[in-house]
């Protein structure tokens, strides 16, 4: 009988641990290439501890003026578009959350519907629109498009965060003579700072990692963000220097990791789909 118990113990406890460790390794191993190669003076395509440890890859990537500019462009596209998005989505969320208006419901459903649409599917017509309006190759127009493409999801998240701020707090401000604007600014906004940061971080990282949108909408090399430069940089050099590629990749990934860690505490909230889990 002990044998049976041991077997059950093994199946119930040890096997799940083993499977999880195995899966964890599968997820971890491919990343090692980027980490090791970036410090390797003679990096190849196989994962191996650096033959010769060096910071030279980082130094040459960071000192390249084209790459520096691509980071500045990337920060502009991601930071300004998420700033625009947070403000516009925050404004939209207010009446959606607080007022009971006839057009709220259809608008919310439209927003929800749009948040599902794959942006890839509209890139050709967006390019045509940019041609038509003479927006092509404009960083500012691309920034606005990135903000708009994240807006449906942003409005939806903002509305949910705002719903969780009690109206009673605002009401007491109104009784004290505050205007709607002051109430929003001084009462609601501070209470939903976590929500604002979540939406901001979420959209920043989405734009930062976006390759397709700037690849289509921007032509001048000097206006391209890091996501496109990293691709073209190594596509154009016949002989790829893997160490430099790896360190560029790592430098490009780090901001996302840092922001993710900062935003993680609040983000997990977004994954329960409200009441949907109750089926």
């Amino acid at each position, binding site marked *: 009988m002990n044998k049976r118990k041991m077997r059950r113990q093994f199946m119930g406890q040890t096997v799940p641990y083993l499977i999880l460790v195995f899966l964890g390794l599968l*997820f971890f191993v*491919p990343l090692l290439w980027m980490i090791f190669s970036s410090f390797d003076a003679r990096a190849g395509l196989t994962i191996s501890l650096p033959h010769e440890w060096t910071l030279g890859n980082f130094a040459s990537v960071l000192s390249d003026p084209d790459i520096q500019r691509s980071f500045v462009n990337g920060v502009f596209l991601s930071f300004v578009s998420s700033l625009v998005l947070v403000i516009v989505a925050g404004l939209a969320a207010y009446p959606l959350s607080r007022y009971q208006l006839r057009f709220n419901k259809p608008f919310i459903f439209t927003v929800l519907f749009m948040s599902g649409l794959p942006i890839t599917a*509209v890139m050709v017509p967006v390019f045509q629109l940019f041609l038509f309006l003479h927006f092509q190759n404009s960083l500012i127009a691309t920034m606005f498009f990135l903000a708009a493409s994240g*807006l449906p999801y942003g409005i939806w998240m903002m509305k949910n965060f705002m719903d969780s701020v009690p*109206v009673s707090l605002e009401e007491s401000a109104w009784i004290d003579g505050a205007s709607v604007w002051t109430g929003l600014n001084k009462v609601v906004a501070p209470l939903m700072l976590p929500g604002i940061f979540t939406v901001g971080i979420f959209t920043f990282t989405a734009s930062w990692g976006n390759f397709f949108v700037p690849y289509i909408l921007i032509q001048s090399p000097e206006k391209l963000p890091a996501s496109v430069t990293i691709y073209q940089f190594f596509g154009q050099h016949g002989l790829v220097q893997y160490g430099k590629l790896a360190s560029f*990749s790592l430098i490009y990934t780090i901001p996302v990791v840092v922001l993710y860690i900062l935003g993680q505490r609040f983000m997990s909230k977004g994954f329960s789909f409200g009441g949907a889990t109750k089926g």
Partner: protein
Amino acid sequence: MPWNPFVTKNSDSFRAILFLLPSWILLLLFIAGPILMTFYFSFTNMSLTGSAAQNIEFIGFRNFVKMFSDPTFQTSVMNTILFLIFSAIIGQQILGFLIAFLMKERAVHFRRIIGVLVLAGWITPEIIVAFIWFAFLSNEGTLNYVLGWVGIAPVAWLFKFPMVSVVVANIWHGTAFSMLVYQAALDDVPKDVEEAAKIDGANGWQRLWRIILPMIRGSVMTNMVLITLQTLGVFTLIYALTGGGPGTQSETLPIFMYDQAFINYQLGYGTAISLVLLVIGIIASLLYVKFLKVEI
């Protein structure tokens, strides 16, 4: 909702519209506008070069006739379906659930470590995911190196098995999303229901099939639709990893659309392909709104 002094007054509708206006403008110009344009331009011969760049003509269904008889279109539809089934529905969905399910009763620190490893694949930008898997799968890459230990000769994975390569890379990139969804869903399953089933003698499989899955089926459906939509739009990963090749072996609809619109300069034809993608997306997105039981 408690009493609200702003519900009934006319001036408040006006104020609400003012608050909503910026989002309406952005959404109309950049999302709704292009969607409407898709319906128009897919019936034109719009081109980036030549005479059709100047005089856009309405050509009826010619783009669609051309598309449906184009063998590359047929290949890319097949590849898109395979990509959706294997990387999203089977791969991410099942692997994500498996990880969340197995992690359910593990030690907190262990959960956290495994969770971080899976999440690392998710937060890595798509273009970097392509580089990482290019390195991993290339001829002198790690996979062939490891297989060499057991005497297996190097395989040109990206050339011999391009679809398998992009499917695997996309599973690696996307699974964390499903894992997070299922972690949240499994946390919502009441402990006592499971305990009661356990006492009544239900084994692990029965508890999974009869209790847990029915209770989280809302999340299963929502997640299915969401990852289908995400996967449908995947461009960067495939473009940078295999470029749709060799030949058209890993060409999916987004890659085909890109090639026709921006390599062959046939914007009208490219738009017709976007329309197909868009219609699939619209159907999936409507399902998503339907499954997501929201209270507004």
